[in-house]
């Protein structure tokens, strides 16, 4: 007997809505939710590999307790009681001796993040952090500095855009299904795509204009664009007059940054910069200079992202059809959002966070996410205080935080490492205990509040019983909590109970999700009135080119541009990115995805490769001050001579994940752990490397 189950994918962090066909407790078919516009059945390749994940016998099949040294691969299969008792006993001891703040929990932001935040607050630790800052901390800060909202509170109306500009935002390979389809439909309707990247990507192959920019010089390009747009009065004057604070300051600031100056810095011809500024502004406000998804390339990152959003502001495209919009919550139509466990009363915490976010040392990153790449330094230097335990909840410090050698050294100082994981990731492999989580097809999850032009709630609903001895994350945390005396903060026995508790007061019920997988608060798109109704959350209520957030923290709104040094003659700048077939570090061992893309290769410019004696497909050694590895070269004209490129997420070291073990090289092994201390992102494109034939 076949049954349809509406749910939410979790092969990547986008969480597209899906429809599953289930028969005899087995998932027979997964497709994108046909009721959701822009999805209509579509599923990306990672999503299509969901059943392969469900069946994969190389997942973590039961709780595991380490019996040999960390990373040795010596494990004892444990019952849940054994594993949970082990973790709870250790945690109690650590908390008693060193206090709650000595416990850190890192995770990739997910639907149940409020549960892990609750866990940490209940034990009196401020040290919950998400992966977010590592991906886009500076994008978040840049958006708050201009609009008072985070990047996550904004989105793009790609489908109605007339000109889309992307700075290395490789949408067609990172693939968010809905935005991809919206962009493809805009292109079909005649929209233009300008793509700027030191490397040719799939997205570049659909562009009308492609600039192979010198790596890390996007800011110079943008200052020159502003120069032209202001000088030639190409901006949206009524919008600028109404909504912008600091336009005159910007005008004088960009005065010296001419297109000719930018040509020197970026390699993009001055006349092309001028022509582009004129062309793009004809389509204002239906213009999107996309601020990207990941924004973590360089130490000036927050200013790069600000410059992108300043261009949008000059086009009047912030809160515009075919531009950016602010996501509307249920409050806009008198509705109520699902409540969260974090709304409970907790003991007061009066120590700073491990990453010092919110202190004068690191004032601006978003404390809701923290800054994860600070973890190794905080542990090693015991600054601001000693950390003793790490719970890694679908978070991978060894492959996501730059400088794996340093990170491993830091982990070695900890008394306890626990992973809540589905796969033998490198951190699971290096943990003391692995608590295996049921995958998305095997568990119900908390309600997913989706704000946007139409606020909605989606639900991940269990499709089949777990294949192995695994549990949902909110249950695992509750069961540890009960053992360490904080059980009262988890008022549920099943995730379904928790969903019901969260939905109380919204007017929606668990059963409402059965028909289509989601509920909507309204049928109409909500745009604010562009003349009077845009609710910027800055102190001025306007877009702050001169930013009170930055200036009050002692940072300049417009620091002078600093020349980006080229790498020394024998070196390259390492740049990294994504492909359609893999999600970050998490899918390389999936049988089907691994078959199509088993390892990464090093893109190297043909001229430079010839000079170094590197033929296409040959093995090369890539090395930085942090580490080195051996990888196959992909020799091509399609990358800037100053850069080499590799996909993120390969070079796994967990032997139990046999398909991905030791395939390719991990970028984190090579990267220096350097941070934009204003915005909070790491600078993944900061590191210089040497490449030589093996």
């Amino acid at each position: 007997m076949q049954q349809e189950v509406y749910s939410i994918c979790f092969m990547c962090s986008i969480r597209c809505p899906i429809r599953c066909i289930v028969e005899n407790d087995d998932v027979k078919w997964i497709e994108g939710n046909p009721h959701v516009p822009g999805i209509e059945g579509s599923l990306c390749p990672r999503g299509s590999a969901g059943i392969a994940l469900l069946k994969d016998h190389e997942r973590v099949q039961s709780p595991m307790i380490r019996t040999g040294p960390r990373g040795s691969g010596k494990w004892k299969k444990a019952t849940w009681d054994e594993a949970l008792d082990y973790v709870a006993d250790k945690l109690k001891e650590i908390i008693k001796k060193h206090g709650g703040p000595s416990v850190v929990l890192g995770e990739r932001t997910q639907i149940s993040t409020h549960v892990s935040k609750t866990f940490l607050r209940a034990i009196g630790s401020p040290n919950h952090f998400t992966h977010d800052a590592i991906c886009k901390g500076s994008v978040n800060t840049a958006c708050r500095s201009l609009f008072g909202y985070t990047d996550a509170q904004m989105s793009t109306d790609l489908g109605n855009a007339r000109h889309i500009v992307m700075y290395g935002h490789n949408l067609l390979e990172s693939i968010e299904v809905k935005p991809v389809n919206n962009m493809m439909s805009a292109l079909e309707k005649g929209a233009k795509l300008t793509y700027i990247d030191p490397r040719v990507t799939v997205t570049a192959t659909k562009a009308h204009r492609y600039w192979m920019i010198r790596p890390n010089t996007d800011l110079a390009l943008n200052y020159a664009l502003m120069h032209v747009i202001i000088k030639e009065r190409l901006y949206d004057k009524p919008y600028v007059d109404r909504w912008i604070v600091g336009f005159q300051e910007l005008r004088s600031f960009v005065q010296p940054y001419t297109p000719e100056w930018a040509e020197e810095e970026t390699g993009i011809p001055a006349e092309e910069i001028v022509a582009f500024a004129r062309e793009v502004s004809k389509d204002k406000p239906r213009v999107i200079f996309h601020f990207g998804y990941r924004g973590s390339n360089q130490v000036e990152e927050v200013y790069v992202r600000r410059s992108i959003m300043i261009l949008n502001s000059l086009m009047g495209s912030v809160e515009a059809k075919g531009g950016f919009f602010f996501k509307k919550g249920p409050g806009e139509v008198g509705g109520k959002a699902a409540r969260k466990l974090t709304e409970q009363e907790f003991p007061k915490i009066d120590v700073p966070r491990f990453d010092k976010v919110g202190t004068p040392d690191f004032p601006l990153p978003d404390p809701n996410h923290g800054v994860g790449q600070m973890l190794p330094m905080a542990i090693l230097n015991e600054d601001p205080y000693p950390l003793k335990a790490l719970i890694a909840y679908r978070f991978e410090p060894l492959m996501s935080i730059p400088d794996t050698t340093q990170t491993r050294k830091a982990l070695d100082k900890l008394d306890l490492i626990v992973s809540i994981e589905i796969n033998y990731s490198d951190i699971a492999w290096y943990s003391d205990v692995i608590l295996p989580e049921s995958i998305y097809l095997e568990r119900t999850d908390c309600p997913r509040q989706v704000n946007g032009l139409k606020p909605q709630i989606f639900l991940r609903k269990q499709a089949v019983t777990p294949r192995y001895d695994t549990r949902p994350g909110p249950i695992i945390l509750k069961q540890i909590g009960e053992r360490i005396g904080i059980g009262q903060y988890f008022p549920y026995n099943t995730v379904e109970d928790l969903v019901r508790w969260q939905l109380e007061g919204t007017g929606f019920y668990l059963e409402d999700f059965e028909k289509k997988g989601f509920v909507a608060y309204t049928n109409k798109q909500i745009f604010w009135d562009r003349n009077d109704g845009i609710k910027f959350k800055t102190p001025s209520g306007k877009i702050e080119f001169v930013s009170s957030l930055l200036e009050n923290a002692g940072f300049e709104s417009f620091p002078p541009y600093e020349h980006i040094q080229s790498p020394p003659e024998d070196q390259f700048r390492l740049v990294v990115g994504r492909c359609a077939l893999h999600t970050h570090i998490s899918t390389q061992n999936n049988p089907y995805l691994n078959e199509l893309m088993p390892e990464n290769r090093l893109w190297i410019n043909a001229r430079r490769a010839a000079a170094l004696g590197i033929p296409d497909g040959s093995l090369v050694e890539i090395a930085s001050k942090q580490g080195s590895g051996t990888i196959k070269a992909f020799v091509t004209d399609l990358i800037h001579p100053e850069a080499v490129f590799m996909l993120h997420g390969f070079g796994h070291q967990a032997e139990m994940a046999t398909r991905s073990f030791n395939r390719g090289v991990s970028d984190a092994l090579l990267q220096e752990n350097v941070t934009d201390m204003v915005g909070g992102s790491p600078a993944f494109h900061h590191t210089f490397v040497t490449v030589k034939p093996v």
Partner: protein
Amino acid sequence: MSKYYLFQDAKNCIGCHSCEVVCKSNKDLPLGPRICQILTIGPRIVDNVPKAAYVFMPCFHCEDPWCVAACPTGAMQKRAKDGIVFVDHDLCVGCKTCMSACPWGAPQWNPEIGKVVKCDYCKDRIDEGLKPACVTICTTHCLHFGTTDEIPPLRRERYAKAMASLE
């Protein structure tokens, strides 16, 4: 020729391989066979912009299929009611003659069962009134499936729009 037409609107294809992955998943195939495949040609710089072609290669379900003619056991067949070319695993002996015969390499080897597998337009799905797996989940909906008269004249429309001047 089968009465169906599977049309790839190449302009909207992003070469993501989701069609390949879902095809394998739907047919529960082991590593090795690729019943459909996206082949990337390029990118190459043409008039200052990079261009690439992402070419979708399933089985063409020929009118007079080389594979059916070559098959010595009658395993490779053309379905009478709609012309879908498929292989009956009860009759396939794994001789691979069809693989040699097909000019486009459509029949694939399944090492797990020692027999040939090939695209059958997901005839079980079609019989239920559904579309083939690849078409259903295609990320950008660039794959279209139907009888020949059902396929939208996308390329003509696009060309007409590009040519038309309403001024």
